[in-house]
């Protein structure tokens, strides 16, 4: 499905930097859409350390990473940002020129956002599925090895092997069971880090003979032309067996990878985007970058730095979005017009 959207700024990455940028842009009447491959906003804070306390957010002697994200979401609510979660930005194409920039941002789900400016707040890169180091796996990816399920129907009548013991593995065991010819779950131990009701449902299917669960780890793949026919399983005993299968779905969690950003025609320095410290604009006019993804002399990968960078980027973005409007500096404490935008006072 292709969705076509027009907005002022497309923000790539909904980590703390991307979220707070919505606030700074919103004060300047600039509308935003945020896109993130994760299922929920918060970036590293939500994905890597939600329960951990953070001690260096100004004004918060202690706040949990998830608590900070929840506060940021509440803080930007008055500006009604639109979130496109679970989608990875694959392409950023220029439709304008240096004076009047305009971009089309396309996701892997087919969403197209046309925006005056792009703000890259991609942090450590996209959170992408970990790929198991099984020899030759690359040749099967996209044809019979999948790290995510987009269409359930694709697995109708197939012998599907799911590898892993977390919620993703268990959820897909249960969701694909009705369509697949046979589901085999492979996990290294007889314990699961998943919702107990999913684990129980899986065990009931196994007990009823409706699917298989085998203890072990996948060590090899067999097939031809990208189509799997079997996988080799090393059991706990050290013995290896082959299991017939058409498709394999490994679920080993996520890791940060730079991803498609490298293809967008930007200057990169050691996988980081160099940005100027006045406007946080990249080598492409109209494309801005803030947060962990950028580099400049003295850059610190701190949340507070990302906040500052967003505030400065917003000033220059304003000039592109409202070329004829003069920007007047105002405080939220005393400006009645800012307070109106925030829905207070």
């Amino acid at each position, binding site marked *: 499905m292709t969705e076509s959207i027009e907005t002022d700024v497309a923000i790539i990455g909904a980590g703390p930097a991307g979220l707070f940028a919505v606030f700074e842009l919103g004060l300047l009447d600039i509308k935003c859409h945020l896109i993130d491959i994760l299922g929920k906003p918060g970036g590293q804070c939500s994905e890597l350390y939600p329960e951990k306390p953070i001690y260096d957010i100004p004004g918060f002697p202690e706040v949990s990473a998830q608590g900070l994200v929840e506060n940021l979401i509440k803080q930007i609510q008055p500006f009604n940002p639109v979130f496109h979660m679970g989608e990875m930005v694959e392409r950023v194409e220029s439709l304008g020129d240096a004076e009047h920039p305009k971009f089309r941002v396309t996701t892997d789900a087919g969403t197209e956002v046309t925006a005056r400016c792009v703000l890259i707040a991609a942090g*450590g890169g996209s959170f992408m599925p970990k790929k198991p180091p099984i020899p030759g796996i690359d040749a099967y990816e996209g044809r019979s090895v999948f790290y995510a399920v987009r269409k359930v129907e694709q697995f109708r009548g197939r012998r599907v092997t799911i590898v892993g013991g977390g919620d993703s593995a268990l959820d897909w065991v249960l969701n694909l069971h009705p369509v697949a010819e046979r589901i085999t779950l492979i996990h*290294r131990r007889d314990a699961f880090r998943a919702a107990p009701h999913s684990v129980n449902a899986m065990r009931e299917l196994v007990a009823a003979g409706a699917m298989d669960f085998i203890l072990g780890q996948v060590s090899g793949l067999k097939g031809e032309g990208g189509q799997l026919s079997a996988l080799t399983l090393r059991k706990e005993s050290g013995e290896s067996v082959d299991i017939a299968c058409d498709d394999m779905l490994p679920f080993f969690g996520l890791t940060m990878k730079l991803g498609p950003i490298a293809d967008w025609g930007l200057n990169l320095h050691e996988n980081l985007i160099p940005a100027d410290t006045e406007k946080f604009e990249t080598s492409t006019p109209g494309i801005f970058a803030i947060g962990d993804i950028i580099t400049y002399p003295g850059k610190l990968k701190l949340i507070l730095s990302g906040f500052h960078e967003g505030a400065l980027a917003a000033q220059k973005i304003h000039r592109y979005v409202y070329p004829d409007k003069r920007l007047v500096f105002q405080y939220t404490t005393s400006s009645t017009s800012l307070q109106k935008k925030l829905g207070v006072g």
Partner: protein
Amino acid sequence: MTKITFKDAAGAARTVEAQDGSTVMETAIRNAVPGIEAECGGACACATCHVYVDDAWTEIVGKPSQMEEDMLDFAFEVRPSSRLSCQIKVAPNLDGLVVTTPAKQG
């Protein structure tokens, strides 16, 4: 000072000094030991600090906690000697510890 030896998958070894009270993962990062990524910075949330504890040391180092065992599900080629190095605290009784990093972390 406590000394720890890191071997890579190919067998190359490097011995570094470790601060008591820190973790084996922090020791690796501080000394730029390759093969430990530690994406989550020690929050037991990424499994990219996976190591195999040398046979002679498995008992002294001990078994993973429940949370760590769960997280090991997201590591590759897990063995009975597998541990997440951010969950191993350096102490004088670990002087001489040998761990091996896996071929791939994440």
